[in-house]
């Protein structure tokens, strides 16, 4: 239960980070609060859109999905089942791979670091690690 709670809390924070980046990309608000200016460079690069959709929007959808699955997994009917954690692990694995690719682009192609993107990558990695930890713990017992 604790792992799903932790995943839900992390996904909620990640959702807002991605939402901030996405809102910026569609023109809501001004310049990104970034410090070094690297965020604008990354957001202005041609890599900030994939298949015509802002990359941050994939993050919004991904975190929303993880949050939803984690909350469903916390319901009494699902607490004892492994299904939600398997689905969470699958989503988080996809998220970590996507984040790794984006971090590679920032470091070696765009040559600028977006702190918000790094924050999102760290949150997604944390979710993935919590999912891995959940696999090592036995399924909770349910009373008949």
């Amino acid at each position, binding site marked *: 239960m604790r792992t799903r709670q932790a995943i839900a809390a992390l996904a909620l924070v990640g959702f807002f980070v991605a939402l901030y980046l996405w809102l910026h990309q569609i023109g809501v608000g*001004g310049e990104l609060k970034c410090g070094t200016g690297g965020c604008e460079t990354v957001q202005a690069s041609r890599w900030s859109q994939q298949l015509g959709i802002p990359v941050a929007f994939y993050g919004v959808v991904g975190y929303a999905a993880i949050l939803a699955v984690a909350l469903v997994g916390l319901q009494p009917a699902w607490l004892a089942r492994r299904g939600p954690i398997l689905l969470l692990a699958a989503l988080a694995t996809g998220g970590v791979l996507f984040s790794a690719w984006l971090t590679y682009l920032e470091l070696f192609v765009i040559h600028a670091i977006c702190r918000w993107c790094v924050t999102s990558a760290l949150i997604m990695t944390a979710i993935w690690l919590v999912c891995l930890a959940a696999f090592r713990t036995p399924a909770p017992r349910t009373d008949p």
Partner: protein
Amino acid sequence: MKRFYVMLGVLTVALVAMLVYLLKSNPSAPRAANQAPVTVVDDGFRGYTLGSDSAPVEVIEYGDFECPACAGFAVIQMPTIKEQLIATGKVHWRYRDYPLPMHPFSRLAAHAAQCAGEQGKFWEMHDQLFTNHSWAQTGKNPTGLFTGFARATGVDLARYDACMESGRYAARIEFSRQEGEQRQVNGTPTFYINGKMYMGRNNSDAFKAAIDSAAAARRR
């Protein structure tokens, strides 16, 4: 479990408050003016020019207002080129926008120059943007600074502001960039002398030699 949902609720409220703060605490650059448009239409515009149309040599410059090398060229070399090559009728100079993707405000600057240009002040704004180039080093939204530059050029500020808000030249700027891409522009500034990419040094002496050579080739 109930405690967890209370904590999640508190966290949500805190995150919403933070998001609202982040979005409202920074003045917005006119987005339409600072981003590539979805659709690009050729409006027939081919850049602002200097010098005589009948000059034997045409130089096309693909520049980015946020690029330090372009600023250096505009401030250091261009006055000599204007005096010795443009004012003397040897060269017709054409400026084309080539905003580089790593420069967050180059499209905005190009748009500011276009908005001044519709009031006949393109070159004045061009000089303001390049002469006061510190705006490009801060990483901060330069919209207010650009308004100050526009004021210095003597344009009607109400019309300038309306132009910037509308983003009406974003498509023109993107068309110019795509044109440059097709012509193999891979950095800024890139020059074409009578249609051929200039590979020499970006100083007025080298330009003078290249332009004399192009003019001689034309005479032959």
